[in-house]
């Protein structure tokens, strides 16, 4: 009996420790594909950080004597039409692609959530205006809107980033708006209002933290799309400029030499694909772990 009593508070303690995040982590860890995805993402983030230090050559070290060489022990991924080491350029490019993908998503998540919260919480005419603008933006195929934005700002990697951030805003905005609409009617929000809490404090302390999970899930999946969109703009000549080793731009450059040097086209594409697979798997895993209701 004494032992039983001694054990009681301990179990209570343990239950308190296993919060929702820990629970989510446990379920995330159980999914093999989610862990594999996270592994790939971590690998590419490491490549983005230390890759340029490991790269045997610089971004634009040209040597026409060794142009279009196939993969060998010296040049693992071969060389391109200007005699640049493809592996080195991919290692440098990881930083560009990941930076663009992640920053674009952070920007759109920030502005999208802000607009979504305002629309959902305040409702009425503000909601109508914001929602209509979202509708109109979503009425354009996203790559088309991105092309339009870049043609206004001028082609560059930074402007491609801005374009991708803009086109993704409505996705986050709509998601958060619907979330806020649901949370707004919860009893604890009514209670907070009843005790005289200010709107800003309710938004900051209650609505925002409770909207975090869909933002995280949508954000991870959106990074995958953003990386492909950045590569697409680079490929169309509307993103990164020469000699930036952005992966999409590398594909565009390699296109002319498809017959002689397919490796210059294969490896950047594989790099894009693997990174995107990583973020997709991780995003799916996060969704299952954090928000099982979102699973379709």
């Amino acid at each position, binding site marked *: 009996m004494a032992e039983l009593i001694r054990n009681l508070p301990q179990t209570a303690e343990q239950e308190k420790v296993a919060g929702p995040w820990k629970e989510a982590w446990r379920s995330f860890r159980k999914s093999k594909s989610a862990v594999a995805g996270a592994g790939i993402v971590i690998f590419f983030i490491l490549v983005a950080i230390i890759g340029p230090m490991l790269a045997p050559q610089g971004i634009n070290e040209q040597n026409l004597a060794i142009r279009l060489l196939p993969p060998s022990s010296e040049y693992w991924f071969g060389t391109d039409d200007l005699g640049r080491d493809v592996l080195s350029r991919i290692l440098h490019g990881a930083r560009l692609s990941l930076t663009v993908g992640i920053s674009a998503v952070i920007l759109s998540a920030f502005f999208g959530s802000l607009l979504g919260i305002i629309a959902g919480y305040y409702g009425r005419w503000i909601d109508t205006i914001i929602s209509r603008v979202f509708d*109109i933006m979503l009425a354009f195929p996203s790559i*088309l809107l991105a092309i339009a934005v870049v043609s206004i700002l001028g082609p560059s990697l930074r402007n491609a980033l801005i374009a991708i951030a803009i086109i993704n805003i409505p996705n986050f905005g709509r998601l958060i708006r619907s979330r806020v609409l649901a949370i707004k009617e919860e009893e604890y929000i009514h209670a907070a209002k009843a005790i005289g809490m200010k709107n800003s404090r309710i938004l900051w302390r209650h609505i925002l933290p409770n909207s975090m999970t869909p933002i995280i899930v949508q954000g991870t999946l959106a990074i995958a799309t953003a990386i492909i969109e950045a590569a697409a703009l680079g490929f169309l000549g509307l993103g990164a400029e020469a000699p930036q080793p952005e992966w999409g731009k590398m594909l565009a450059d390699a296109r002319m030499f498809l017959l002689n040097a397919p490796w210059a086209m294969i490896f950047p594409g594989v790099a894009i694909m693997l990174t995107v697979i990583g973020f997709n798997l991780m995003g799916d895993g996060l969704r299952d772990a954090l928000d099982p209701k979102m699973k379709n």
Partner: protein
Amino acid sequence: MLHYIGKRLLHLIPVLFGMTIIVFLIIRAIPGDPAQVILGQQATAESIAALRDALGLNNPWYVQYFDYLKNIFTGDLGDSLRTSRPISSEVWPYLAATFELAFFAMLIAVIVGMNAGIISAWFQNSWFDYTAMIIALVGVSMPIFWLGLMEQWIFSISLDWLPTSGRQEVRDPVTAVTHFYLIDTLIQGRFDQFIVVVKHLILPGVALATIPTAIIARMTRASMLEVIRSDYIRTARAKGQRMFVVIYKHALKNALIPVLTVIGLQTGLLLGGAILTETIFSWPGVGRYLYEAIGYRDYPVIQSGILIIAFLFVMINLLVDVLYTAIDSRIKYN
């Protein structure tokens, strides 16, 4: 039903107006003076000023916008700066090319994607299921322009099985009637040309179909798995019906509704994907028409091209929503 369609069309009006405003603003915001572009670098200041006046560029923006709206309503999409021909007549062959490609791609996506999803659900956790779902994951994660290049490298350059680019044999062009070459060649009885047109469609079609195929396969599998576990399927099995009949006759009907949603959404998204696919395969579609116009700074074409694609996108999405009512009477529209 009619009430619902009417309501949706009414909702569309502000969206369409918004689209015209955005397109109008985009074109005004693009750096560079259209008059300068039309007349070239050597133009004198007087001739530029005269042309600006003639084009109405000196009017206040709201006058310009209403002129623009008035033109759209009368079907006048402006003239291309490059060819000096009216866009509304020039654009049709390009649109037909895009429709043909998109239709072909969607056909591949629906046939392959649905069957792969059905078989994956039928033999859940089998090697087929795993392989199909891994391929689907790779499919949604692959940049389609890269896939297009890989296809060209493998099937055109290395194996020489299929043409690299274009829509037809240059030496033996199709006589265009409807500009849908699959139809045109058939009504003229040119089966040899029909085969050539199909061969040209395969590589860009597969590239464009990849993402929708993968998404349809995933959706069909998920939806099938849910339906297969329901009582009426168990009853059908218990009656001793063959699994094939149970799956394709009974289960599919109910599993289809969420799949149709995805098919509809993906059809709209194909228009975006078409811009990239058409660029790689030199496919003379509306995406490429627009992309080239950007290169030439052909403002009227950019303006109308964006508007046309966006309009089609909205219309396809509306059509999909309306189709649900016909298919699933459980969905109620208010």
